């Protein structure tokens, strides 16, 4: 028996020592045992305070959907406020403002006539390919514009008139059209750039044209211009820059989550909406001057043949160039409609 006890003792003694040592070593760790869940625990208020604009409270999740790791993104409320309060103002000022401006211009200045009247002789201004390209892009633009406006303002303007079912159906088709017509539109923008950029490089002449108010303000004033005057160049560059911005922002909305997360989608929708409204306002002016605003102007994109007197008044240098190339012998007999 004693041998057993002494044997036990000989085992216990080093064990006790080992335990004592362990506690001695673990002494600093003992401080952790008194860890208070209160002090170091994450706290929602602190997390929210530490957030910078556009940031989210995120963590880890155990489901495959990575986006679900974002717990709170307060920016969603700001995006709501933009959609609800800012956008109607921007849209209202841009579109209604431009319409009022154009109506006032028509009232005061009236339709800009061809001063010398129609000569009966025409000159080819836009070849059939150019007109095709213009009208494809324009048709896309109109449908894209209307379906886009419907997305932003339809629920206030149209929904009460036609009811939820019809409105939802219409908006659904509008959305599909918007998604698919985006592609011919982008192609149109690219083609227009390639075909027309050479005639749209700004020059000194444009400055003089602008100083003379483009001859739009007073009768009898016709600052010289080549194929495109400064106003048309302005429209060209607006379409190109606007088109690129719309395409870029729209691309990220068409292919969501490839460019980033919900924050980038919020930013791209804001860019898309603001540029679109300014773009529409600009195009309203373009439509005005190309139709009711100026006599003889529509033919350029209609038949492609413009009256020589119109051409001389608005694009004197271009007419000279064309005549020098022998394309339109001065005094040629009136031409009929081009065979198309």
């Amino acid at each position, binding site marked *: 028996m004693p041998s057993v006890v002494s044997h036990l003792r000989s085992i216990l003694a080093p064990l006790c020592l080992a335990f004592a040592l362990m506690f001695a070593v673990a002494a600093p760790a003992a401080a952790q045992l008194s860890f208070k869940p209160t002090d170091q625990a994450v706290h929602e208020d602190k997390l929210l305070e530490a957030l910078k604009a556009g940031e989210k409270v995120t963590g880890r999740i*155990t489901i495959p959907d990575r986006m679900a790791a974002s717990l709170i993104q307060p920016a969603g409320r700001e995006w709501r406020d933009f959609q609800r309060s800012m956008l109607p103002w921007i849209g209202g000022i841009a579109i209604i403002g431009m319409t009022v401006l154009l109506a006032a211009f028509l009232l005061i200045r009236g339709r800009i006539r061809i001063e010398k009247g129609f000569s009966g002789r025409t000159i080819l201004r836009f070849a059939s390919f150019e007109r095709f390209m213009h009208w494809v892009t324009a048709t896309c633009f109109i449908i894209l514009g209307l379906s886009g406006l419907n997305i932003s303002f339809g629920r206030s303007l149209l929904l009460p008139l036609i009811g939820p079912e019809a409105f939802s159906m219409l908006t659904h088709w509008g959305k599909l059209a918007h998604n698919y017509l985006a592609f011919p539109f982008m192609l149109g923008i690219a083609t227009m750039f390639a075909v027309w950029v050479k005639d749209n490089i700004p020059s000194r002449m444009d400055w003089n044209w602008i100083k003379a108010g483009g001859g739009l303000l007073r009768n009898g004033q016709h600052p010289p211009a080549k194929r495109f005057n400064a106003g048309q160049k302005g429209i060209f560059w607006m379409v190109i820059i606007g088109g690129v911005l719309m395409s870029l922002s729209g691309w990220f909305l068409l292919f969501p989550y490839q460019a980033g997360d919900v924050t980038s989608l919020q930013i791209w929708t804001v860019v898309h909406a603001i540029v679109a409204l300014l773009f529409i306002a600009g195009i309203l002016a373009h439509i005005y001057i190309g139709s009711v605003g100026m006599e003889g102007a529509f033919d350029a994109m209609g038949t492609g043949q413009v009256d020589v007197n119109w051409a001389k008044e608005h694009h004197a240098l271009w007419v000279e160039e064309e005549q020098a190339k022998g394309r339109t012998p001065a005094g040629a007999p009136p031409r009929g409609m081009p065979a198309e």
Partner: protein
Amino acid sequence: MARVKFLCDADRCIECNACVTACKNEHDVPWGINRRRVVTINDGKPGERSVSMACMHCTDAPCAAVCPVSCFYTTADGVVLHSKDLCIGCGYCFYACPFGAPQYPKVGNFGSRGKMDKCTYCAGGPEADSTPAEYAKYGQNRLAEGKLPICAEMCSTKSLLAGDGAIIAEIYKERVMKRGYGSGMWGWKTAYSDSPTG
């Protein structure tokens, strides 16, 4: 009428994901969609907290404010619901929602997201209560049967509370008083801050 809300007492959540699973089962939620999820903040660090989050049924709900077809409606209990018949799957509600609640059956381009799906507070949708049509689109309508959402009912630690907002807030505050700490009423500031009555 009571204004119903969710409240997750993160100091009690053990990240068991029972609420997530119960929800999926109760409503036959399609693959890829989680109406409720558990997010762990500061995972692996001292003081980590897990929060069970779904649609918070916000006051002046951002989703409802931006929906182009205005397909959301708020019930008398303050539950934010939507109509899948009217939804065009545009994604706007997802952009606006502070809690990532709206989800789509397809992650498609070209507007092929499908109809939006989100937590209904177990209150179904615009269809007649507890009909097969309602179940197919929105899941079980427990509220119509006088029951609370399954996620909160399932919660083993009673971390997730559902019910009258004033009452569950009171329960939470009592708990915080008693134990002396609380990591906050997650999401409440963002979801209900604008309204004094919540």
